[in-house]
C-alpha cells in the first residue's frame, strides 16, 4: 500500500478525462476530475450524478471518459456506485462474469452539491450505512450550476444565486452552508476528507487513500465556478487557495478507528492552527467573487461580512476542537 506519489509522477500519468469536454473555460471540475483519476490504482468504474460535469463531458455523440462511466439520475449516484461494487463482489465470489478477473476495482461516484447535500443525500447515506467499498467525490460549486445557478444546501450565506437574489431587503441566501463532510463523518465510515485543488498533491493523496481503505470513503472538494461565482476564469486556483487560507474550507481528514472518529488537520490548515496570524480575513475571499458584490457595493456591508466571519471562526474552532488542537 501507500505508494508515495510526487507531482512529477502525477503529471506523467495519462489523463483519463479527455480534452474536448465542454465545461466552461477555467472550470475547476475539469482539474478535479483529471487529478482524481490520476490517483487511481488500476481498473476504474465511474458513476456520475447529473450536473455540469456529467453534461459537459458527454454531449452526444461525444464522451470525454477513457474509463467505464455510467450516467445516472440526479438523486442516486451513490446507489449506482453501490450496485457496481456489489456486482463486482458477486462476480469475484463465483469467479464468473466480466469483472471476476480483477484484483480490485476503483469505484468512484462524482456528484455536485445539489446531487449530494440535497437530492442525493438519501442514496448517499444509505450507501454509507451499507458499507460499500467505493469513493464518493463531491465537487462543490455551491449551487445548481447546470440548470442556471440555483441555491443549494451547499450555497454559503449571503451568496447571490438566481433563487436567492440579492435585493434591497434580503442580501442573498439566508441560510448557512450545511457542514456536509462532518455530517458524512458521523456515519462512522473509514475515511472522510475535505480538499482544495490549490493543494493538488494533498488532494491526490486523499483520493488515493479514499480508494485504499476498505469500505466507503468521501471527499468534499471545493469547485470554484467562474460563471456562478462571477469571477474571471484565471482566478480559479487563487480562489480555491483563499478558501483554505481564510479557513472558509479547513482541510482535514477523519478516520473511523477503534470505535472513534479521529480527525486530523491537513498540512495547509495545520500551519494556520500553529500560527493563527496566517489566517486571512474572509473579506479577501468574498471580494474576488461577484456573487458577493452586494456586500461591497453600493455600500460596504461590514455588518454582513462580519457575520460571515463569525460563522467561519465558529466552524474553524469546531474543527480545531475535533482535531484536538483546542
Amino acid at each position: 500500500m501507500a505508494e508515495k506519489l510526487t507531482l512529477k509522477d502525477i503529471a506523467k500519468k495519462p489523463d483519463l478525462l479527455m480534452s474536448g469536454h465542454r465545461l466552461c473555460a477555467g472550470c475547476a471540475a475539469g482539474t478535479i476530475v483529471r487529478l482524481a483519476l490520476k490517483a487511481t490504482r488500476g481498473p476504474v468504474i465511474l458513476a456520475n450524478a447529473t450536473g455540469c460535469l456529467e453534461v459537459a463531458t458527454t454531449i452526444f455523440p461525444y464522451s470525454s471518459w477513457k474509463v467505464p462511466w455510467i450516467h445516472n439520475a440526479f438523486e442516486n449516484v451513490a446507489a449506482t456506485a453501490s450496485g457496481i461494487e456489489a456486482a463486482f463482489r458477486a462476480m469475484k465470489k463465483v469467479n464468473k462474469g466480466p469483472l471476476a478477473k480483477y484484483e480490485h476495482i476503483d469505484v468512484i461516484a462524482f456528484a455536485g452539491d445539489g446531487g449530494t447535500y440535497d437530492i442525493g443525500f438519501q442514496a448517499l447515506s444509505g450507501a454509507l450505512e451499507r458499507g460499500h467499498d467505493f469513493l464518493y467525490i463531491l465537487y462543490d460549486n455551491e449551487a445548481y450550476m447546470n440548470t442556471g445557478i440555483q441555491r443549494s444546501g451547499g450555497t454559503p450565506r449571503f451568496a447571490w444565486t438566481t433563487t436567492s437574489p440579492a435585493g434591497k431587503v434580503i442580501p442573498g441566501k439566508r441560510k448557512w452552508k450545511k457542514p456536509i463532510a462532518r455530517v458524512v463523518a458521523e456515519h462512522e465510515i473509514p475515511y472522510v476528507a475535505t480538499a482544495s485543488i490549490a493543494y493538488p498533491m494533498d488532494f491526490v493523496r486523499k483520493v488515493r487513500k479514499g480508494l485504499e481503505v476498505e469500505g466507503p470513503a468521501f471527499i468534499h472538494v471545493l469547485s470554484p465556478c467562474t460563471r456562478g461565482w462571477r469571477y474571471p476564469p484565471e482566478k480559479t486556483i487563487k480562489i480555491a487557495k483563499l478558501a483554505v487560507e481564510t479557513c472558509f474550507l479547513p482541510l482535514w481528514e477523519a478516520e473511523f478507528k477503534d470505535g472513534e472518529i479521529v480527525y486530523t488537520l491537513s498540512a495547509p490548515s495545520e500551519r494556520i492552527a500553529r500560527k493563527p496570524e496566517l489566517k486571512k480575513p474572509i473579506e479577501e475571499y468574498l471580494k474576488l467573487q461577484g456573487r458577493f458584490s452586494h456586500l461591497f457595493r453600493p455600500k460596504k456591508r461590514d455588518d454582513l461580512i462580519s457575520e460571515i466571519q463569525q460563522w467561519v471562526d465558529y466552524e474553524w474552532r469546531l474543527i480545531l476542537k475535533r482535531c484536538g488542537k483546542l
Partner: protein
Amino acid sequence: MSLEEKLPGWKEIPIGGIPFKPSTEYKTGDWKVFKPVINYEKCTKCLFCHIYCPDGAIKIKEDGYPEPDYDFCKGCGICAEECPVKAIEMVKD
C-alpha cells in the same frame, strides 16, 4: 404518418444514450481569445501548468517541458496565473 404504417422496431432505432465518439474529435480551441505562450528560457519544468489546466491542454514533451495544445486550450489563463516563475504569457490568439 397513417395508422397502418409500421413504426421502426427496436433493432432499427439508432443506438441512444451511448456517446461513442471521443471528445477529442470536438476541438474546443476556438473558444479562446487569448492563448498561453511559454517562455522556455524561464520555464523550470515544474509542471504546475499541466496539473492545474482544467482541459488537459498542456501536454508534456519528451524533454519534460510543457506545451500548450491549442486545439483544446480554451484560454482560461489559469496556467499563466499560476506559473511560479511567470514563464507563461497570454497573447491575443
